[in-house]
């Protein structure tokens, strides 16, 4: 599903955030990318989500080589991913439901069908009863669950998260982990960048450890 070969990302100025990284993530896997701060976790997530383009090497997602992808094709590729960010990137000028509806509007789903699916996604993360609330009224854990609902509403093949529990207490972090596990169990490929030792301990066989941009 995701195959990286000698993948390198060099930023303007010469800083190499990811250096000749090679790995393979199969369909339905649940993988954690870990490492110290500045190890290149976020850059790797951005490369997989095609937010950043590789400098050298190749990255193949669902059979598509991202290095050779035309810029106009990138939005369509991104629809295969459910992206969850540490800062959630929620829209605070609209309701919880409207936040989850956004990806469905982007693909042009009719309103009635979109609302049905958004409500189902909110139900899955336990926020259906808060659908009319403004995200600002939610706790940190609830906001992260809302971000997950928005990420999965389009039924993506890959759920990609960057430090999704970075700002959460232990209890909320466990809730989030359980939600990710539930999606993994129904066949969704889950890739999570984290430095949370609890998660890393639990999923030791499926960890990609980065150190100064290199896999160790």
């Amino acid at each position: 599903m995701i195959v990286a070969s000698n993948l390198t990302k060099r930023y303007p100025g010469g800083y190499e955030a990811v250096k000749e990284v090679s790995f393979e993530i199969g369909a339905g896997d649940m993988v954690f990318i870990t490492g110290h701060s500045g190890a290149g976790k976020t850059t790797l997530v951005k490369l997989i989500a095609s937010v950043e383009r590789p400098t050298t090497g190749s990255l193949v997602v669902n059979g598509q080589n991202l290095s050779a992808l035309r810029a106009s094709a990138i939005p369509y590729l991104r629809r295969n991913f459910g992206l969850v960010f540490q800062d959630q990137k929620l829209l605070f000028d609209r309701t919880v439901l409207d936040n989850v509806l956004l990806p469905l509007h982007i693909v042009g789903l009719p309103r009635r069908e979109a609302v049905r699916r958004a409500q189902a996604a909110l139900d899955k993360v336990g926020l259906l009863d808060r659908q009319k609330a403004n995200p600002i009224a939610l706790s940190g854990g609830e906001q992260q669950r809302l971000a997950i609902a928005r990420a999965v509403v389009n039924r993506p093949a890959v759920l990609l998260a960057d430090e999704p529990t970075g700002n959460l207490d232990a209890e909320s972090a466990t809730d989030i982990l359980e939600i990710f596990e539930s999606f993994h169990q129904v066949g969704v490929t889950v890739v999570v960048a984290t430095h949370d030792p609890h998660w890393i301990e639990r999923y030791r066989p499926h960890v990609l450890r980065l150190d100064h941009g290199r896999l160790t």
Partner: protein
Amino acid sequence: MRAWLTQHGAALEGAVRRLLAAPLNTFLSLLVIGIALTLPAAGYVLLDNLRDLGRSASGAQQISIFMATDADRRAAAEIEARLKQAGAGRWHFVPKEEALKRLRGGEGMAEIVASLPRNPLPDAFVVEPADATPDKLEALRQTMAGWPKVAHVQLDSAWVKRFDAFLRLGKLAVTLLAAIFAAGLVAVTFNTIRLQVMAQAAEIEVARLIGATDGFIRRPFYYFGALQGALGGFLAAALVATGMKLLAGPAAELAALYGGEFALHGPGLRNILLLAGVGAVLGWLGAQLSVSLSLRKFD
């Protein structure tokens, strides 16, 4: 196709929502656009009215064909046939008896006419040419002058030429004014959209991350620009129509003082739709420029 329609519907709905979300801002923007379109539109409608006035003014753009005094009715019929053949426009025949009767009806003319030994007036045709451009009128006058039993052909071509030159100058001035105000309209839309893009930076960033195409992001702004321009066009049409209505009475009185009949007319449905269409196109253009420049920072 269904997804495409849904997305366009949603973009249009979003644009309407944004227009209604800040009514005061919307009203002020519409007022600026409306006034920018009103000035050239009013100029255009006034010129249109002046053209009509020129057509209806007594003696203007008419050709009088005076027959020779010895011309009989058969000669007049021959001229009529030639007018028909030349497709000269509309005409009517004024027999010499009727001309004398009219002359007699003039103030203080009855005694003078009575003192004449015989009717000195010729038969005549008054022609309203189909094509009233000065060059065509002059060519027609020369042709008519060569017809049999025609003594004199009268065309006030100097007046027609002056009037035509005035109209052309007016048209050029209105066109220049329209170009300047069109640029103003584009600038107003550009700025409004730029502020909207800045206000919605977070939404644009998120939408891009989750797979929104450029078209999806740009579309609501385009619709907003076009809607704002079209509404500004309708406002301009309403302002022009109101102005014309206010001027119609005094203009008719002025025309009556000169012995004519003149009704000032408003922009008309076709011109109203044209004005809204021009506003929409300029609004769309302003939005396109603004979005293209504003979205660069998201790349």
